[in-house]
């Protein structure tokens, strides 16, 4: 017995799920994995996958991997959402719905965690990876090995959270796991430990990405591109990464303290023994609120690019846009208390944080007016990417009004923790963050893959999302006013809420159809890729330098790095009938080598996390040693780069012009 507990920690035959829903989910995920592996073997693609993708330090490849993983996680979180809707539409009166209370609580905890940390963050880092180096004329990120390692830590977190479906259980304490509910006394199972280690690992990956992109933007811009000549997407990323660097350490430390409480019996946040749960709530939101802006700022950046491009006009008020971004960045650290006005802080504290919260609405409003006046006296081309922008303005404004109402502490007392709040933040995250990334993905897709996405299917996807969204979330605003709280697995029949929950469920199904339509759009566009080919490298009549290179962007990005004299450098060059660079500028360059060690580090982190969760202490030590040794091997590599000659580059350019690479 002692031997088994040393060898296996808390693992035993009892850890496998007993309810059919969880088991089914786990089996289908494993089955999907086996299917993909079988296909890779059958088509003999393992080597290609390993060399071209899994170990490749090219920022574009990493970006694509982020997006694929993020979409898979979006689907996983979406299935969670459908289950929640099914439960709340059916669990009324005598009926207790399709899920047990414990499964339901795990499902909503997983939904929030997955959507924020893996779907939204993944799409964001994916898009940043794809675009930022191209937009600022840098050949890669500042630290390519670190970049790939960040991705693999992110992936390790994603795998870990899905393991909880099949081995043990997930946290049932909500996506932010407030103590004392998340303490050992009230959550004795491994669920919260899964939550902790998923976020520890993925969070460190995010922090390193933040450092990487901040450095890249500060140090690697093309000659002549001063900060005030930098495209707004890169500006928004600069601000977001600044927030990542200041916010994510708070998250890591906070959940580390929770880990100490749960594992070593310390008393940082326990109810007794001198702990203080209110400290946790403050700390987690000191990260949590900036996190919202980490997600939304790059989406603002995307809209700034596409509104200018498709209005065929300079962005209105560039300077105010930058200042608005900077203002939001700074202010986002001074509003965290608005997440818990109801915790009983004094009137002065609540009043202060309420007013600070409202002040953020000013720079946000400025940005919206600047976008609108970018359209004024333009020539607006209604591309699918722009549809997402229109949806964003309408829905985001409505969500913003809801936000301003809740910023008043005394009004928040009546709306906090209600479905009104749930509707509010979904409006911000879905119509702001997701719509922004979808728009950006539509916009930059040809640059990465060499062909455009099907326009009509893109617009259909948009309509399904918007209609689905309105049906799914407007009933929740109403339910909030009816006094319905979030996270309820059951409610009384005489309240009369069921029809609203049913409508919300229908909306969720329509959103799911929107996701399916998006996947279908990918398939159709791929099959028609020769018809949709982007021959010029500039399919939208673009303004910034990423459109000056051929599509798909070659592995070295720029044959030669251009000198920048204007904010819309490529637009100006086109107007003056100039080329930004010529073949004579091409010289030998160095590019980072593949980095299999990053993959190994991700595996070590995954094993480490798993061992920590299940208290398999020998494995903790082994995986830690493996991690450090692997890292040392890589750091001792004297030549982690390879030379690409000018000749190779010119040859490749010729090939790309003839349509190679699609």
């Amino acid at each position: 017995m002692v031997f088994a507990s040393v060898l296996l920690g808390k693992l035993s035959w009892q850890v496998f799920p007993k309810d059919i829903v969880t088991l089914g989910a786990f089996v289908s995920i494993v089955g999907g994995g086996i299917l993909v592996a079988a296909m890779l073997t059958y088509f003999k693609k393992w080597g290609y996958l390993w060399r071209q993708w899994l170990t490749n330090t090219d920022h574009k490849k990493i970006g694509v991997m982020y997006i694929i993983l993020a979409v898979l996680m979006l689907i996983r979180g979406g299935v969670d959402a459908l289950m929640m809707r099914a439960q709340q539409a059916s669990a009324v009166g005598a009926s207790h719905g399709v899920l047990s209370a414990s499964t339901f609580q795990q499902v909503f905890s997983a939904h929030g965690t997955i959507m924020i940390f893996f779907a939204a963050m993944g799409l964001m880092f994916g898009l940043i990876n794809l675009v930022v180096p191209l937009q600022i004329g840098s050949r890669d990120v500042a630290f390519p090995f670190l970049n790939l390692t960040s991705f693999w830590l992110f992936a390790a977190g994603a795998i870990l959270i899905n393991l909880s479906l099949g081995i043990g259980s997930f946290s049932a304490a909500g996506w932010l796991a407030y103590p004392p509910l998340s303490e050992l006394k009230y959550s004795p199972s491994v669920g919260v430990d899964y939550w902790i280690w998923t976020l520890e690992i993925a969070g460190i990956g995010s922090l390193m990405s933040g450092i990487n992109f901040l450095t890249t933007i500060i140090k690697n811009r093309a000659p002549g591109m001063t900060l005030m000549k930098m495209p707004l997407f890169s500006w928004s990323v600069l601000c977001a990464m600044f927030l990542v660097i200041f916010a994510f350490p708070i998250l890591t430390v906070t959940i580390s303290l929770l880990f100490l409480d749960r594992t070593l019996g310390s008393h940082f946040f326990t109810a007794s023994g001198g702990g203080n749960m209110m400290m946790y709530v403050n700390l987690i939101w000191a990260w949590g609120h900036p996190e919202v802006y980490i997600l939304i700022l790059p989406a603002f950046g995307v809209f700034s690019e596409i509104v200018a491009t498709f209005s065929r006009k300079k962005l209105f008020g560039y300077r105010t846009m930058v200042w608005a971004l900077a203002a939001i960045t700074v202010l986002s650290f001074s509003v965290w208390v608005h997440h818990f006005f109801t915790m009983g802080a004094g009137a002065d504290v609540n009043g202060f944080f309420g007013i600070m919260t409202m002040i953020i609405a000013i720079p946000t409003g400025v940005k919206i007016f600047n976008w609108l006046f970018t359209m004024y006296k333009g020539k607006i081309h209604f591309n699918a990417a722009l549809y997402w922008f229109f949806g964003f303005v309408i829905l985001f404004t409505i969500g913003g009004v809801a936000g301003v109402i809740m910023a008043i502490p005394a009004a928040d007392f009546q709306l906090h923790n209600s479905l009104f709040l749930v509707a509010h933040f979904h409006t911000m995250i879905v119509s702001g963050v997701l719509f922004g990334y979808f728009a950006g993905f539509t916009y930059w897709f040809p640059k990465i893959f060499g062909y455009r996405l099907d326009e009509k299917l893109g617009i259909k996807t948009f309509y399904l999302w918007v209609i689905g969204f309105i049906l799914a979330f407007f009933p929740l605003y109403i339910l909030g006013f009816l006094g319905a709280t979030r996270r309820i697995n059951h409610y009384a029949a005489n309240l009369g809420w069921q029809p609203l929950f049913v409508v919300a469920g229908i909306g969720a199904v329509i959103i799911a159809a929107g996701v399916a339509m998006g996947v279908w759009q990918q398939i159709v566009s791929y099959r028609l890729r020769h018809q949709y080919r982007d021959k010029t490298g500039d399919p939208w009549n673009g303004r910034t330098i990423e459109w000056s290179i051929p599509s798909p962007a070659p592995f070295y990005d720029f044959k030669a790095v251009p000198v920048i004299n204007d904010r819309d450098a490529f637009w100006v060059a086109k107007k003056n009938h100039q080329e930004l660079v010529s073949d004579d500028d091409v010289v030998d360059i160095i590019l980072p080598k593949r980095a299999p060690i990053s993959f190994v580090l991700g595996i070590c982190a995954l094993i480490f996390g798993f061992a920590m969760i299940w208290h398999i202490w020998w494995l903790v030590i082994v995986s830690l040693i493996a991690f450090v040794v692997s890292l040392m091997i890589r750091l001792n590599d004297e030549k982690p780069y390879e030379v690409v000659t000018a000749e190779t580059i010119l040859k490749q350019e010729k090939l790309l012009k003839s349509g190679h690479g699609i």
Partner: protein
Amino acid sequence: MKKKRNKIIIGFLSLVVLSLFIWYLSTLNFEVLNPKGTIALQESNLIYFALLLSLVVVVPVFSLLIIFAYKYRENNPKKVDYKPDWDKNSLLEFSWWFFPAVLIAILGVVTWQTSHSLNPFKPINSKVQPLRIDVISLQWRWLFIYPTYRVASINYLPLPINTPIDFHLTSDAPMNSFWIPQLAGQIYSMPGMSTQLHIMATVNGNYRGLSANISGLGFANMSFVAAVRSNQTFQTMMKNMSQVRQTLNYASFLKLAKPSLNSKVEYFAKVNPAIYDQLIMSYVNHYQPTTTKSTNQTHLTKIGMIM
């Protein structure tokens, strides 16, 4: 012809659906906007006020978006201005920093004032002597102690009308949030902490109360009835409660506090009003919960085994 008829049918159907929906909404109780107490009334007025003020920004944003998108569309047959290099105008930019700032300033003043006037810790101005009620959230039900009457109840909260109520709240469970939407906004109840909420009900009736913060398995069941009655009826209710058999002291409270999914109403007489303070002090003074202690010890031994 056919197209026109289809349009009429679709229009008619949507009208039917819309009126059915409005009829359905009219049957519901919008608890947050249907106040039956002084605090809830002021809070719902505040929500309306903020909503109307926000419309001052929403209306121009929506109209500008629609007008600009329509007028400056690429394939507009009418000739419209195209100025690809027009990218700044100080007056316009100033105006959308300035006017929203004015709105926020107005809202800010209201925010500051209402944060103070509706501060849950602030006693309500009234000639009537306030009634203190101690609220303890358990796993997963509510215990209400009336120290003045030395009675207590589970999941049933009788309140006298037009009397200021002074709730003191704590928890012997994870964080909960005490909320009676028609009487007042919510406040957290936390173990080892004491929060306060002052309310005054102005209309007789039964109102739904609940926990608004996830606190474990039985959290959705934590609803109770706040029964607002005339002073006379309230006194009778207290008297009846003081005659029940079940009593409550700290020892029997600890038994009561064990996790339970049973949300049945219960009454207690001869209640020791010191329970509330004793409970809070039990969290503050010493490190006592036995379950935590034993689990932690096993963990520590396990670590000790390999280190």
